[in-house]
Each structure stands twice: as C-alpha cells, then as structure tokens.
C-alpha cells in the first residue's frame, strides 16, 4: 500500500481549483484592448530604439574632462643693458657689417636654375 503525503494531496487540490477558476475567467479581446496593446508595444519599441541611439550618438556623449589650463601672465623681462663698448662707433659698424654679411649668406643663390643645360634630343635616327 502506497502511502500518500497529506501535503501533496492539499497541493493537488489547490492546483485543480486554480485551474478551474482560470478557465472560468472571461478574457475578451475588445478593440480598445487591442489598440492599447498595440500602442504599448510601439512605446516599448520606441524606448528601445531611443536608448540605442542615445548610446551611439556623439552629441550625447559625455564631454571628456580636460585639465584646467591656468593662464600664464606675460613675463616682462627687464630690458637688456647695452654695455659702454656696445655704444661705440667701432662696435656699431662691426655689428652692421655682421648683419649685412649674414643677410648675404642667407640669400645667396647657389642653384642658378636659369643656367641648367637644356634637355635636348641627341639621338636622331630613322630606323625602327
């Protein structure tokens, strides 16, 4: 003789009752319900799409935190003092000559592109 657990029996009874109740509940798909469900579905879809785009759009990206730049004020160096010898005519003439020579050295044309030998055809022939 198989003995049955009383708790199992109670559980079976409850299950049967619930099943019976559920089958008795009248679910009618009215047009209002259909429209509501459709609108709800669309809304969920829109929310999903919006979430996806929000993640990928560069406009919605969080700005990167850049280190703050502290403004640096202009440094006013004291004017350099010209020496006594630097004010003499000899030195000033020397300085002028030096600057002139530097300029000449910088601007000297060492290519003479106008004097490049012309490219000429030097192989006249009437053979194939």
């Amino acid at each position: 003789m198989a003995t049955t657990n009383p708790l199992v029996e109670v559980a079976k009874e409850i299950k049967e009752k619930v099943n019976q109740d559920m089958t008795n509940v009248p679910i009618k798909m009215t047009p209002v319900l259909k429209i509501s469900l459709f609108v709800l579905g669309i809304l969920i879809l829109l929310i999903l799409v919006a979430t996806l785009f929000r993640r990928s759009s560069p406009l919605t990206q969080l700005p990167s935190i850049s280190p703050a730049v502290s403004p640096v004020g202009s440094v006013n160096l004291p004017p350099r003092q010209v020496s006594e010898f630097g004010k003499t005519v000899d030195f000033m003439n020397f300085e002028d000559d030096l600057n002139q020579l530097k300029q000449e050295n910088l601007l000297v044309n060492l290519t003479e592109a106008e004097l490049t030998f012309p490219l000429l055809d030097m192989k006249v022939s009437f053979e194939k």
Partner: protein
Amino acid sequence: MSSRIVIFLSLVSGLLFITNTHAQAGFIEDYQGYLKTNDAYRTAHSTYITTRNQYLQYGTLNSQNEALDAVKKFLIARDEVVLSFISLLRLKNNDPLFAALLNDDENFLKNHKEKVPVVATLNDAVSVSQVVENQHILFQVTSRKIVATLLIAKVENLHLKYHQLEAKTTSLIHTLKNQGKDVTTLERWILDAKNKELLSEQKLLEAQNKTTALRSSSLDNLTQEYNAIQFTIFEANQYLREALAFTTELSENIKYGNY
C-alpha cells in the same frame, strides 16, 4: 681735397651700380630670348617626331620629304637653343679660359647650323646630327664647369667679406683686452668661428678640385659629379653660416656683457 675724394667715390659707385643693373637687364633679356628658342625647339622636335613616325609607318615619298624637312628644322632649332644658352653663360662667365671655350663652341655650332639646309637625304641628316651629338657632352662639361665656378666665386666672395669682418673682430677684442677686460669667452667664440671658417675653406677647395677634374665620361656620370660639386659648395656656405652664428654670439656678448 676730401670733397674731391667723396665726389670720385660717388662717381665710381654710381658707375658700378649702373654697370651691374645694365648687366642684370641684359641677362633677363637674353634669358627671355633663350626661352623663346627653347619653345621653338620643342615645336620643331614635336613635328620631327610626328613626321618620323609617319615615314616609318607608311614609307611613302611624301612622308619621307616631310620627315626630311622636319628634321632639318629640328637640327637648326637644336643648334639655336645651345647657341642661346652659350650667350647666357657668356654673360655670367668671368674666366677667360671658359670664354675661349665658349667661343669655340659657338663657332662650331654656327658652322654646323649653316650646313643643315644643304642636307638632301635622311641619312645625311643623321650624319650631320651625329657631329653635334658627339660634341654634346663636351658642351655640358664646359657649361657645368662655368656654373660651378660661378657658385664657388659667390661663396669665395662671402669668405673674403668674412675675413675682413674677422679682422675687425680681432681688433675689437684687442681693444677690450687693452682696457683690462676679461675676453676669455670672446676668444673662445672667435676660435669656434675660425674652426668653422677653416672647414668652409676646405670644402671650397674640394669643390674647386672636383670642378677641375670634371670629365666627360657619360651624361649620367657628369650629372652625378656636378651634383656632388654643388653639394660641396652648399656645405662650404653652411660652414660659413655657422662661423657667422658664432661671431653673432661674440657680438651679443660684447653688446650686453660687462664691457
């Protein structure tokens, strides 16, 4: 007396300025002429190539005559380009040896140009052309030697000016030394500048030797050798620039130092 000297110097410098301006204007004018002959040469060359191809393709008497006519015009145009280029070189050249070579080349090309109109066959045209083709590399050697000498002279001129400046620098340092100032740093700068100047002189000498040794083995070799000379001249000028930079440091030291 001094006013007479001033007037004399003003006249001399004025004349030099006018001569230089005139020479520059002459060169620009000749260069424009050279460009025109070069354009004419290109047109003649294009016609020669076209007629030559037609003759080689069809072999008709008419195409042969057209090719002959075109090749004669081409040969004359080619001679004219080189003649025009020689006149440009002559304006820039100061060396009597090169001047004589340019005269020889010019006479040779003028004679050749006179022979072209009497050419009667395509074979004759080829032979007449070969006479210039054989001389072509020699022209190029002379031309490149002249240009290299010109470039060397430019750097040498700067060198000469630098020597004068160096003498002034030494004089300034002596003056300061006599005043009991410490010139150790200044002497170091001038020593560095002198080293650079020596390097520049070496490079100039190297460029001169290479220019003298320029030979006509082949056009490619010639171009390669000439490029090496040009690079050596650039180096000489660069060393001179560095010497000037050291002299500038010296000048700044005197100007803002304890002198």
